[in-house]
C-alpha cells in the first residue's frame, strides 16, 4: 500500500523525464535538473509538451506508479500502464455484478449514500461557519431536501430509481452552491454546472480538480486490480472510466468542491488568473493552474480518521483504502461497500 500520496505534476513545457537509478530525473529546457525518488511517488502527471523516456515508463509501471498525459489545459490524453495487475477472479466478479442490475444497484446505493451524505455535510459546515455571510434559510431548505433524498435512497429499488434520486440531490446541491462562493463578486458567479467547455471560472476550477481526482481514483482502482472502466452506477461507455466515476462520487463535495471554494474564498486564485475566450469558454492560466495543483497536493496530505476503519490516514490514502474496500466487497469479504463519510 502506498503511504506517501505524492504525485509529481510536470507543467513546464519542453521538460523531459528520464530514469536515473531509482530516481525520476526531470530536465527542463533551460538545462535545470531535479530528481525525485521513485519510491516516494504514486503518480506522475504530465501537462502538455512533456516527454518521458521508455525506460522510465517501464520502471514506473513496475512500481505501480501511474503516468498520465494531459493537455496543457488538463484534458486527459493518455496514460501508460504496466502489465494488468491483480486478480482475474476479482475482475470477472466485477463484470458479473456490473451485468446484474440488482447487484449493481446494491453497490450504487452505497456509493450514492456517500455522495449525498457528504454533500449534506458540506452544506451544513458552510452554514455553521459562515451563517452571517450566506442565505442560511436557502441552505436550510436545500438541507431538508437532501435529507429527503437520503431517506428515499434507502427505499429506492433498482438503478433507475437510484439515478433519479441522485439527479435530484445533485440539482439541489448545485442550486445553492453559489451561496458558498463568498468572494470574487461577479467574476466568480456560479449558475449551475457546465463542462464542455466550462463557461465560468468556478466551473473551470471544478472541472480541473475533478480531472485530478479522477486520475488518482483510477490509479487506486488499478492498484487493487479492479477495472476502472466498468462501473455499477455509471453505465459502460467507451473511453469513460465508469468505476472511477462511481468511486469519485463520495469525494467530490468534501474534497474537490471544498478545495475550489477555499481557493476562491481565501483569494488564492483571482478573476485575473483566467482567460475568457470569444466563445465564452473559460481557460485557466498557468499561474492559477500551479496554485490549484499545489493546493490539491497539500489537501491530500491532510490527515482524517477513516469513518469505517476508525484509523487515521492522509486523505490521499483514502482513495486507495476505498478501492481496497470495494475490492473486498466484490470478493465477498464485506457485506457492502462502506463509503467514506466525511464528518
Amino acid at each position, binding site marked *: 500500500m502506498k503511504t506517501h500520496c505524492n504525485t509529481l505534476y510536470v507543467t513546464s513545457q519542453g521538460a523531459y523525464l528520464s530514469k536515473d537509478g531509482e530516481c525520476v530525473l526531470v530536465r527542463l529546457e533551460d538545462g535545470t535538473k531535479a530528481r525525485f525518488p521513485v519510491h516516494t511517488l504514486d503518480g506522475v502527471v504530465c501537462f502538455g509538451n512533456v516527454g518521458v523516456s521508455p525506460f522510465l515508463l517501464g520502471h514506473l509501471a513496475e512500481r505501480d506508479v501511474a503516468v498520465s498525459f494531459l493537455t496543457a489545459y488538463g484534458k486527459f490524453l493518455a496514460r501508460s500502464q504496466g502489465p494488468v495487475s491483480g486478480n482475474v477472479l476479482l475482475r470477472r466478479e466485477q463484470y458479473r455484478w456490473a451485468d446484474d442490475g440488482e447487484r449493481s444497484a446494491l453497490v450504487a446505493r452505497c456509493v450514492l449514500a456517500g455522495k449525498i451524505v457528504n454533500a449534506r455535510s458540506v452544506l451544513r459546515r458552510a452554514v455553521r461557519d459562515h451563517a452571517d455571510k450566506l442565505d442560511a434559510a436557502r441552505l436550510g431548505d436545500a438541507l431538508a431536501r437532501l435529507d429527503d433524498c*437520503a431517506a428515499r435512497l434507502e427505499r429506492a429499488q433498482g438503478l433507475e430509481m437510484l439515478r433519479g434520486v441522485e439527479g435530484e440531490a445533485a440539482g439541489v446541491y448545485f442550486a445553492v452552491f453559489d451561496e458558498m462562493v463568498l468572494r470574487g463578486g461577479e467574476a466568480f458567479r456560479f449558475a449551475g454546472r457546465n463542462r464542455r467547455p466550462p463557461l465560468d471560472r468556478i466551473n473551470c476550477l471544478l472541472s480541473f480538480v475533478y480531472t485530478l481526482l479522477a486520475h488518482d481514483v483510477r490509479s487506486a482502482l488499478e492498484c*487493487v486490480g479492479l477495472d476502472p472502466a466498468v462501473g455499477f452506477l455509471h453505465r459502460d461507455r467507451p473511453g469513460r472510466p465508469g468505476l472511477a466515476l462511481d468511486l469519485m462520487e463520495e469525494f467530490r463535495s468534501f474534497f474537490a468542491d471544498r478545495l475550489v471554494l477555499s481557493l476562491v474564498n481565501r483569494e488564492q486564485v483571482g478573476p485575473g488568473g483566467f482567460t475568457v475566450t470569444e466563445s465564452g469558454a473559460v481557460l485557466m492560466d498557468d499561474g492559477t493552474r500551479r496554485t490549484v495543483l499545489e493546493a490539491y497536493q497539500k489537501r491530500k496530505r491532510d490527515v482524517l480518521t477513516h469513518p469505517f*476503519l476508525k484509523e487515521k490516514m492522509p486523505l490521499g490514502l483514502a482513495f486507495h483504502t476505498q478501492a481496497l474496500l470495494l475490492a*473486498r466487497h466484490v470478493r465477498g469479504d464485506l*457485506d*457492502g461497500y*462502506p463509503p467514506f463519510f466525511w464528518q
Partner: protein
Amino acid sequence: MDAAMYAEDELLPISALQHYLYCPRQCALIHLERVWAENRYTAEGRILHAVADSGRVRGRGGVRARGGMPVRSLRLGLTGVADVVEFGAVPGAPQVPYPVEYKRGRPKDQDWDRVQLCAQALCLEEMLDVSVPEGALFYGQRKRREVVIFDDALRAKTTETAARVHALLGDGATPAPGSAGRCRNCSLRPLCRPEAIRRRGGVRHYVAEALKDL
C-alpha cells in the same frame, strides 16, 4: 496411495505451504488475490534469500553446495527454489542431496519451516530418484543449523498441506480471517483489513446510520 500427478501448469509455489499454515486467508490473498506488501520481516527475508539464491557453487571439506536450485514435484504439485542444496554432506553417499533453508529470526514453535524444507526434499527425491533422509534450517538470529529429519509424520503433513493448498486455491474463494493473534506481525494486514471484516453490524448498518443522521 497412488495419487494422480499434477500437470506442470497446476504447480503451486512451495512458499504457499508456509503461507497456508500461517493463515489460509494470507495464502489466498497472496496466491489468489495477488496482493503483496512488504514489512521489515519480509524485506529482511528477501535480502537474506537474495544472498543464498545467487546460484553459486561453494565447496568446503568435500561438500559441494549449490545455491538457488529450482525444484518441483508433480506428485505434490509444487515448484520452488531451494536456497542451498549440498552434495557429499552424507558420508558414503555423494549423490544424496542435503537441502538447507535460510530463515531470518529464530526457530518457530510451529513446524512451518520444517514443512517447507520437507517439500523441497520430496521434490529432490522425485527429481533425482534418491531418498533424502535429512536437511537443515539455518536461522539468521542464532547463526546455527537445526537438523530436520524427514520422518513419516513430517512427510504426511507436507503431503496433506499441499493437497489442502490445492483445494483452497482451486476453489477460488478467499476464506475469512482466522484468529486475531497472528494478524499483528502480518505484512498483509493493511490489505487484508481483518478488523473491517470482523466489524460488528457490518456495512449495511454503517450505511443505514449515515443516511438516517438528520
